[in-house]
């Protein structure tokens, strides 16, 4: 059974006050807080077991390497990947997207080749493709969302043409909370022989992910949004795609032999993990994944669905508030604007009431332009949020309406 009070109790930061009132943390879309088990694991990793990984034969190096390498299996279990050999550990989705762009797409794409992406994308799944556009004339082909924020999978499939080499889509919009039907997109793309890269930064936080059922080729996740440390993350890469990857960054750990004249590379996934990695952040990330799997993704999703329904009802009842994104089945992420008040005005006043939300363009400027809004406020919920916190948010917004309306 899911006990939100018991969950909250595991997060020391949720006991603090902000501006004299108990913290209401609704900026989970930007980064989630960390449970005690993750904090303890970090302390243990640095305090008891620390050494560099993959390098020494001494006891600490072995402990550190085993802990670090163990995370690969945890990620594989979390995403139901066929093999942990298909998991590349990294610093998060931004690195993952840049790696796929540099290591898979750049050597394969010719000028005029297309990448299909949706207008819902985060800049991390846009700018790496712009870099390829600038460097080698790759064409970005955009698919718009409906006014409610939903994305028609058929529209994405229809956008795939003979020159399309990759579809890059989010699983869940960080602005509107839209859940994208990645399975349908992958089915359609597969029929046309085009790989699908999924930005799972938000999706993996809020619902159970099964990459085999989704049928995509790449699925990237970010540790700090999954209740783990910042600077951690992973990407699952299907075996066929992994075989097509070229080295990304050069350095230690990713090589087999180096001479003055030549270099041979380590097999994947090591080939794609140059240099000393974020050892402790990755180990903490593994603990966070265990923690989530122990609770159960279905239970987390059910709890958040309750928050979503309650928040949709309460926020929807404020006729001076404009919700951006009301797609059916969306996640508990609410972006909104208020006539007369700037998003920064709202977030400043909410902060004064101890409520943390994000204000701005949410690293999704093309979507903001499509929605016709300059900036929005965003309340994004997580596993530890409560209906009482939805009420606190509504009270804070009512004060904003009083001040700015």
């Amino acid at each position: 059974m899911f006990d939100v009070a018991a969950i909250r109790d595991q997060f020391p930061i949720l006991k603090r006050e902000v501006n004299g009132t108990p913290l209401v943390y609704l900026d989970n879309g930007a980064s989630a807080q960390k449970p005690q088990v993750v904090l303890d694991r970090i302390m243990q990793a640095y305090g008891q077991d620390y050494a560099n990984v993959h390098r020494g034969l001494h006891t600490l190096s072995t402990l550190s390497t085993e802990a670090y390498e163990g995370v690969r299996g945890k990620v594989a279990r979390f995403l139901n990947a066929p093999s942990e050999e298909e998991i590349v550990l990294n610093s998060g989705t931004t690195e993952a997207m840049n790696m796929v762009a540099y290591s898979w797409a750049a050597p394969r794409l010719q000028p005029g080749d297309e990448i299909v992406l949706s207008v819902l994308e985060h800049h991390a799944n846009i700018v790496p493709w712009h870099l390829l556009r600038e460097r080698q004339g790759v064409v970005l082909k955009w698919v718009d969302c409906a006014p409610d924020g939903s994305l028609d999978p058929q529209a994405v499939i229809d956008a795939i043409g003979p020159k399309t080499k990759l579809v890059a889509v989010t699983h869940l919009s960080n602005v509107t909370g839209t859940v994208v039907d990645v399975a349908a997109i992958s089915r359609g793309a597969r029929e046309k022989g085009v790989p699908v890269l999924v930005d799972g930064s938000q999706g993996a936080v809020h619902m159970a992910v099964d990459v085999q059922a989704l049928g995509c080729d790449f699925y990237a996740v970010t540790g700090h949004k999954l209740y783990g440390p910042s600077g951690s993350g992973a990407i699952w890469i299907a075996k066929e795609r992994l075989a097509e990857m070229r080295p990304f960054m050069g350095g230690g750990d990713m090589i087999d032999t180096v001479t003055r004249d030549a270099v041979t590379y380590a097999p994947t996934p090591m080939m794609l993990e140059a240099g000393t990695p974020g050892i402790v952040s990755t180990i903490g990330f593994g603990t966070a994944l265990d923690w989530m799997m122990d609770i159960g993704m279905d239970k987390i999703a059910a709890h958040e669905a309750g928050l979503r329904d309650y928040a949709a009802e309460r926020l929807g009842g404020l006729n001076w508030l404009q919700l951006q994104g009301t797609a059916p089945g969306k996640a508990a992420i609410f972006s909104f604007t208020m006539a007369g008040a700037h998003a920064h005005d709202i977030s400043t006043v909410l902060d004064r009431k101890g409520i943390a939300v994000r204000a701005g363009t949410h690293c999704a400027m093309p979507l903001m332009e499509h929605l016709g809004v300059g900036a929005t406020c965003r309340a994004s919920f997580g596993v530890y949020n409560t209906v009482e916190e939805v009420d606190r948010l509504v009270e804070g917004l009512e004060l904003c309406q009083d001040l700015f309306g």
Partner: protein
Amino acid sequence: MASPAFEAVVEDFEFLGDWEERYRHVIEMGRAMDPLEDALKVPATKVQGCASQVWLVPRVDGEGPEAVYHFAGDSDAQIVRGLIAVLQALYDGQPAEAVVATDAPVQLARLGLDSHLSSQRSNGLRAMVQRIRETAAAAAAAA
């Protein structure tokens, strides 16, 4: 002592209670300030480093030691507009040399605004004060 206009603002704030009243007053000051014409909201007048959009249009009457500093400004955020109105009270109509010499953080602290509002980098107060001081210093130096 700062400018008479700013001293009047300080006096108003002395009668205000909690943060909510102070915010309300800042917002009111912004509403009472003349908006900037759209034609002046251009890249050259835009202040970088602010989370919301901010424009400042300085004007200097006279030269050298006699130079008097004026500025108009605007923002699409109401609280920031209010802060611009506070800065206008502090700087507008002052000798350019006095503008350069004014310690903005010290003066703004007299309003009892919380540190969040007066020190936050992202609301652009720091960037606005820097722009004002730069343009005033340039005018004072052009003797």
